[in-house]
């Protein structure tokens, strides 16, 4: 509340005749800082922007990054103490090893599934958190929990918090862009990139390749000359109106918003013009892969880099979508046919993501960009009774981060021998976001917005920075 008021006061300091450019800064650009009149982070930041990769459906830690030799040994045996366990879809059977081998990768010799050969190259840069926990075992609330810190819908997503705290580094693109998968939106849909009760300008703008922003283009029936004449007439109307009602900064802000819109119309199509990239780059990402799902995700990876390069603060890149009738087909929700499902999903994630990270590294972008890989929960070490898949597990999952401010080649926390529960340095989603905000120069307890009786935070009333994965 106080911050909003400060901000309003700030706006009111302007008298008439201020150049539109200065207002543009206030509205949509670098000078925008809603959380504090200073517009500065709370302490010196290590990272300036974030790429969040999200694998919806509950990506199995046990078949990707959390190596459990004991699970391999006891494959087919009952899980000690867990014989009668009932999870999300029902009863569980015996322990089930991962269908794939884990192999040592990098200098650190970190075990990674053989199904992610490319991502395995990057382990020395990654900081893993193996002891993640969440509060629900249901996809919809869990996705919202991962992205907003609350199981309820209606709270702002992390990207919106950062847009609110730091604004964008450019006037010409939104501060926060969400890129849903070609297969569709994730569970809970736009609630994953909502601004919740934060001002609407902090909403994640959903990009797609054909039209980066809805209504960006002028309708085809309107020719260039007509557009110019209309906008010049509109400018006259707005000027006259403003002259009649001086002293209302909101009216000036509105005029500025039209100028900004015009600039966005020029720059947003440019950012999604992937054809400007070299053939070598396209092959590196795999945008022309014969598997259309790999190609589509690779294009989104390339688009992500272009957005981040041009000053977008937060890119939220989805790899998979909601379920649709068949578990595990469209996302990482491998209830019944783990092997077939992950042989479909892992190659989509693997090469394009690796290419994106390596490309960013090559360009020096990882100096001040943070990359995080997330999912909403993990999976059970047992097979779901009568199936060859795994049920949901909110008590253990893995995420990783790399790039600016992150100590590569580290692992924080651990699960038990089978990966059923997080037992060492148990980490919450609030800890995870507290750490990310910390890297961006923000104290998670100070980044607040008043709503319905509380100074709300991304980290609710919890969260501790995970110090040992910081460089």
């Amino acid at each position, binding site marked *: 509340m106080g911050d909003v008021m400060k901000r309003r006061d700030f706006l009111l300091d302007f008298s008439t005749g201020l150049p539109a450019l200065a207002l543009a800064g206030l509205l949509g650009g670098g000078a925008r800082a809603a959380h504090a009149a200073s517009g500065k982070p709370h302490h010196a930041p290590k990272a300036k922007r974030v790429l969040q990769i999200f694998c919806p459906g509950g990506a199995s830690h046990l078949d990707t990054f959390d190596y459990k030799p004991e699970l391999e040994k006891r494959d087919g045996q009952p899980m000690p103490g867990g014989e009668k366990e009932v999870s999300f879809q029902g009863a569980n059977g015996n322990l089930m090893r991962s269908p794939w081998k884990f192999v040592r990768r990098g200098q650190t010799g970190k075990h990674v599934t053989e199904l992610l050969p490319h991502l395995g190259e990057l382990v020395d840069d990654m900081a893993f958190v193996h002891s993640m926990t969440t509060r629900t075992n249901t996809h919809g609330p869990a996705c919202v929990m991962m992205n907003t810190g609350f199981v309820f*819908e209606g709270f702002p997503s992390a990207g919106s918090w950062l847009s609110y705290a730091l604004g964008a580094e450019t006037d010409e693109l939104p501060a926060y862009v969400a890129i849903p998968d070609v297969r569709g939106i994730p569970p809970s849909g736009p609630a994953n990139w909502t601004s919740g009760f934060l001002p*609407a300008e902090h909403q994640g703008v959903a990009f797609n390749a054909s039209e980066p922003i809805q*209504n960006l283009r002028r*309708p085809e029936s309107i020719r260039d000359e007509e557009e110019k004449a209309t906008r010049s007439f509109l400018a006259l*109307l707005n000027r006259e109106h403003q002259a009649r009602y001086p002293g209302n900064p909101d009216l000036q802000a509105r005029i500025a918003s039209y100028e900004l819109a015009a600039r966005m119309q020029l720059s947003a199509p440019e950012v999604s013009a992937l054809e400007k990239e070299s053939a070598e780059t396209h092959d590196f990402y795999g945008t022309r892969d014969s598997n259309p799902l790999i190609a589509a995700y690779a294009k989104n990876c390339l688009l992500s880099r272009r957005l981040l390069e041009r000053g977008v603060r937060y890119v939220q890149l989805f790899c998979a979508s909601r379920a649709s009738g068949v578990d595990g087909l469209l996302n990482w929700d491998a209830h019944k046919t783990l092997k*077939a499902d992950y042989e479909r999903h892992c190659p989509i994630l693997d090469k394009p993501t690796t290419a994106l990270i390596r490309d960013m590294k090559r360009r020096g972008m990882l100096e001040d960009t943070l990359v995080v890989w997330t999912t909403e929960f993990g999976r059970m070490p047992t097979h779901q009774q009568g199936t060859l898949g795994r049920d949901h597990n909110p008590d253990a999952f893995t995420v990783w981060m790399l790039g600016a401010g992150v100590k590569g080649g580290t692992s924080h926390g651990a699960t038990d021998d089978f990966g059923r529960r997080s037992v060492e340095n148990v980490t919450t989603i609030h800890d995870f976001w507290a750490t990310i905000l910390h890297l961006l120069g923000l104290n998670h307890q100070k980044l607040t917005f008043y709503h319905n*009786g509380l100074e709300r935070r991304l980290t609710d009333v919890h969260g501790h920075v995970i110090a040992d994965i910081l460089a």
Partner: protein
Amino acid sequence: MLVVRRFLLLVLPVIGAAAAEEAGTSLIQKRCLSCHNSTQKMGSLSLESREAAVGGGKSGPALDTSNYTGSLLWMKVERGEMPVGNPLPPAERSALRAWLEAGAPWSTPLAVQARARADKSWWSFQPLKIVDPPASPDAPTEWSRSAIDRYLYAAMRTKDLKPSPPADKRTMIRRVAFDLTGLPPLPEEVEAFEKDQRPNAYEALVDRLLASKAYGERWGRHWLDVARFGESHGYEQNHLRSNAWQYRDWVIRSFHADKPFDQMVLEQLAGDVVGKGNPDIEVATAFLVAGPHDTVGNQAEAAKRQQRADDLDDMINATAAGFLGLTVNCARCHDHKFDPIQHADYYRMQALLSGVHHAEREIVTDGERNAWEAKAKPVEQALSDARQRLKSITEKAAGRVTEIRKETLAKYRPPVSPRLTEETFPSVEARFVRLSAPAGAPGGIDEIEVFTRDNRNVAQRTAGATVRASSTRTPEANPEAYSETHLNDGKYDQRWFADGNQAVHVTIELPEATMVNRVAWSSDRNGGFMGRFEAAILREYVLELSADGEVWTKVASSEGRLPPRKDDQEHIVLLAALPREERETYRRLRKEIAEQEARLKEIPALPTVYAGQFRQPEEPAFLLKGGNVMHRVEQVAPASLSTLDGVMEGFTVSPDAPESERRVALARWITHSRNPLTPRVLANRMWHYHFGRGIVGTPSDFGYNGEKPSHPELLDYLASGLHHYGWRLKPLHKEIVMSAAYRQSGAYNEQAGRIDAEARYLWRFPPQRLSAEALRDSILSVAGVLQEDAGGPGFRLYKYTVDNVATYFPLDKFGPDTYRRSVYLQAARSIRPELLAQYDCPDSSLPEPKRVVTTSPLQALSLLNSSFVIDMAEAFAARITREAGEDTEAQIRRAFALAFLREPAPAELTDAKELVSRHGLRAMCRALLNATEFLWVM
């Protein structure tokens, strides 16, 4: 560092031991204690006392008494590891070091300091108090008439502010029309009002607007924000609630009819009780379940309890915040940190609502129910008789059934199975294999295999075979999900599904004529579905072969197979077991039951509304430690909040009393004449919508974290007004909009602006931007296409499809069926239409007592380029041609009159003429709809 040490050595004896201790312990108090205290022992460490610090935590002693500066406490601080994420600034670091060097003097234990907070003496929990408005001899006449103005004027004078002059008539009619109806007035109405010289012209206008249907739509929409009303479940599946609109209509109807608010509270919490048999009232309980609800089931016990607790939390929050302005949900895990709301209060309220469940409910008049029962009763009776007779026959034969079960079943072939169904036949040459399912293939097929005698599957695509299905399900969101290619891809993971459950056939064409003798198929070869879909399976089939695809030879069918379901198998055994004479009776009864069941289905079901279901709770409510559903501490009875114990009597409902009594008691307590919160909160909401800002700037939080009232006496005057008017809103609306404060100019005044930029003291009328809905409705209205039809199912701005989860495809072309007021939009959660979302229409997942108003380039883009606005610019252009004829100047004048309610200025007229002559009327209309003047109420 050196300097500091010397300084301390010199100064210590002078400033004394207490100050030396203070220098260090105050830092620990400030920087460490919030995490390291006796209740919240991070790392098992408390730093409340010297002993505790020496005792240490998980990582060992924090203070080392033999080497203070080598203490863990110092190491952590020096390395910047503590406090986590917030390292000590150099000056504090030096002070801490100096304190340690001085031997860490620490005699007085520390305690986490209680934060400032409200207790029961907080202003909003006090009884309403009427203080006569102070007399202000210097006040202009129009500011001395009403009580409202006298309160405001007196407050204004304390800040050295003066009111603005009255606004002109054109400004006033536009302002009050938007405020009370959300729609612009017609140019003819403006003209008539300007000409009306009667002293009560404005009052007559207000009366007319308050009586209009549009008032209910405008103010109903405000309440729907507070009630977090949405028309889909939200979360992953997000299915539509196609029968939730009745609540929206109830809200609009109630506001329109000026139903007393205490009655509205009662109906929303207990309409099923007080309006039994009266659907117009009963539907109001939809308020309780208007929030999101996760429809994905769950088998895990903790998760089931959590889902239920979260549903109730949403109801508690909506009820407490909406009616009382209390953040009761902050007491879910512990006592409220700022307000006198106990941890137990949360669970008292939970107990009051614990009979409410998310569901739709039959809501009908007694007449409708009787008529339905008159039709259904005889059928139900016949059905029950037939079942009874069947049962007695079956029971008599029980012994014989056991005896002959095995041999009877042995006469049949094994049933079809989702895991594998096979048919073997004498080798025959074929090019085409056709599997027909006359009753459909509900379980789908993951693979069909055709084998040669040497067990070679020749049906696979890789072997050159092709497959065709007579129908295939293609969900729009994922058209390939059930593709026929799954039938012969050699994998058992994905299934082909037919479109619907009618007759279907699948044909495999082999690359060449081949000798074959076996066909196999399955719907769940891997057993992944755990037999859950045994019943949904292809049961009846005919298998045919052909050499040319035209002449077919049947080689196998489902005839002679046991039915897959156990009770169908039992039926076969029973028939064999019955004496011949009873067999006929048995068959006849079975037929009759099937017929009666069909007849019962044919009677149209009674209408339902998503208004919740009510059941007596199976167990009492428990106080949960830390809000953890698995950590029950003690039983809590359904009762009122202790918060208001000082001003009114509370209540407790016996846990054995019918569930409905709890909700009635809650409603009566909320609207009790001594409850000071409800009328204050309501009056403040009204003020908030009239002036764009409440007297309390946090309309759903009257606690410590909320704002204090800018005009407490005025607030109590308005709240008492609600009591005085018998909880009717319209007389209070009238009092407010008749005030001089409301009728003053909105013009800026630099001097006043410097003192009170936001005009909290109402030295001017604060200009407001139209709400998202008012903007869209105004565009429709000015374009002359707004449909007048009110109520009923909402219109959609998306295409809706369901395939387990719901998918909403935003439309980019809208027909006239969508040209209705925005309050009638079917409001699916998360799926806000672009234009409305960008202009700050809330998502309705949480109550929204106060919309944020933003300005962004995305707003400009949607107002410039969306197909809706272009269509409306065209309709607007057509309208002015229709109404003003062919003369360009007349057209322009008409357009300005409709959009801005005024004549164009000379410069505007010249430029408009130029624009219209070169690019037509549409270009000008598009500009007018984008103009600030169109969007702002001054």
